[in-house]
């Protein structure tokens, strides 16, 4: 992917140089706009309450302190429960792990079946699954709450895993389907002539070719499920709540003195896993975001 203008000769002269400086200036100003909230969160989380009161919004912490982080991690009160963010962080891990693995596995199988073993109506089936990715969740909140009640899963991590698997299927199926479409059918044809079966071809031929899309899908699902708030707030009760719901309860509490450094540290704790994944594997995250959105 080279720049569109790389076919053109570089512009010369003073005017061009000024324009170039202006260009960088604009880009850096936008970078500041995007970075401001994150930097504010990081800086504030390392400040003492005293320093927040007296100091400036944008100043760096003078006395670097981890107190707010440790307080937010295991002492802050979320409702009446003063065990900090740690148990909720664990809840999110417990939900995210199985939900990502199961939804990715089904997505891969669906994508494989829908492209390499096409049956009558395969496109309609895919279209109907795909629509799920646009669904406003509000439409299913109430029936889902009732259903989880019938299943005895109300308020539990198991219930949230089920919800995330079901509504993640649209994305995982889309990712794998669009990826497998580009893998030559001849590979599968040759393997069938050699006597390989459906699952053999999947595990021996397709999966080894699937590493990039596996990474894209896992990162996408991890980010979506970790960041979910609506399902967590609707279907998880008390101690089973995911980290985003706990954070919201902590930040929006009206009792006691507002501890901004603790709020910010708690927010960083809740955001760190997806932020780290983004920094380490941003390329794959962006591929997930734009998957299928741009032709060619």
């Amino acid at each position, binding site marked *: *992917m080279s720049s569109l203008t790389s076919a053109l000769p570089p512009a010369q002269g003073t005017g061009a140089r000024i324009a170039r400086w202006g260009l960088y200036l604009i880009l850096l100003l936008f970078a500041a706009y995007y970075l401001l909230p994150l930097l504010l969160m990081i800086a504030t989380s390392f400040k003492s309450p005293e320093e927040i009161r007296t100091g400036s919004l944008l100043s760096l912490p003078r006395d670097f302190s981890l107190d707010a982080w440790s307080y937010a991690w295991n002492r802050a009160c979320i409702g009446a429960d003063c065990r900090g963010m740690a148990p909720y962080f664990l809840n999110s891990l417990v939900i995210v792990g199985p939900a990502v693995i199961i939804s990715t596995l089904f997505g891969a199988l669906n994508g494989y079946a829908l492209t390499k073993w*096409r049956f009558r109506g395969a496109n309609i089936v895919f279209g109907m699954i795909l629509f799920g990715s*646009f669904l406003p969740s509000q439409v299913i909140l109430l029936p889902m709450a009732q259903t989880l009640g019938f299943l005895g899963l109300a308020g539990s991590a198991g219930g949230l895993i089920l919800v995330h698997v079901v509504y993640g299927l649209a994305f995982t199926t889309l990712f794998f389907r669009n990826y497998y479409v580009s893998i030559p059918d001849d590979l599968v044809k040759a393997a069938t002539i050699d006597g390989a079966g459906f699952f053999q071809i999947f595990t021996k031929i397709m999966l080894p070719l699937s590493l990039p899309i596996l990474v894209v899908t896992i990162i996408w699902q991890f980010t979506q499920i970790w960041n979910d708030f609506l399902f967590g707030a609707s279907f998880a009760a008390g101690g089973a709540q995911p980290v985003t719901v706990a954070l919201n309860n902590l930040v929006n509490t009206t009792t006691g003195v507002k501890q901004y450094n603790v709020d910010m540290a708690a927010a960083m704790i809740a955001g760190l896993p997806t932020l780290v994944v983004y920094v380490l594997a941003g390329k794959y995250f962006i591929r997930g975001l734009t998957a299928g959105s741009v032709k060619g």
Partner: protein
Amino acid sequence: MTLQTPSYRPAAGDEAAPGSATPHKAGGLRALAQRHLSKLVVAPSFAAILLFVYGFIVWTVYISFTNSKMLPSYDLVGADAFSKLWRIERWYVAIENLLIFGGLFIGVSLIVGILLAVLLDQRIRGEGVLRTIYLYPMALSFIVTGTAWKWILNPGIGIQQFVRDLGFPGFTFDWIVQQDTAVYTLVIAAVWQSSGFVMALFLAALRGVDQEIIKAAYLDGASLPRIYWGIVLPSVRPVFMSAFVILAHLAVKSYDLVVALTGGGPGYASDLPATFMYEMTFRRNQIAIGSASALMMLATVVAIIVPYLYSELKGGKRV
């Protein structure tokens, strides 16, 4: 939450679809079993989608025609909930806010995203780092970043106080606590979150444009802005459509943003349909009205998505 797929080109009558080399034609009985295996593998997912998406939509439609209050009731009473919904002032506030918020959010995100994409396309040093910075908000929950935004926008401790401390005591920026301006703070934060995504979409598209055409125009003496305005942007027209559809359906679904930033306040001045629905269903014991409002949201999303998928389908036939 955001994906759609223009590269998905459903072919009508899929047996005739090119590229569907059907391996099952290669053998006899065994292949027949294999073909059914394929259906069996997709069946659990499809059944789950049928039940949890389409079944639940029907369920919500049913509830919206009952008089359900605190608990769902299954006595049909006609379209009462809908007529009640359209008499609630708060619903009109939510709709009006959605129009203001949606319009500005889509417009400004497109402008900022396209601007950044074009600027980043000028052989910029450190492009990778800048791209990473522009796009990171999409990787974080707004419940997380909203904590910072709430602070920045809080007049007592945020930007307003910061500028006043710099020596401008008259400076006022208190949109978040004012009834008529709170909705604009949602726009500021939403653009911040999503414009990097628009940038990524357009940057990828720009890199797919044929460089020879640009070169030819340049040799003909066209200036760079003219080349972009006249040739490059029109040639990535499909991306406008994709970006619009994604942003529009995100706007309708916006929920975390409001909860984290304004909580719908002051009062309910910055309510959006998603927060209205939650409030009615889970806090005010008006389940039927909540369901009716959820269906309005669904109808809006369908109105955006279906024509788009349809045009994609037509486009697919042409190719």
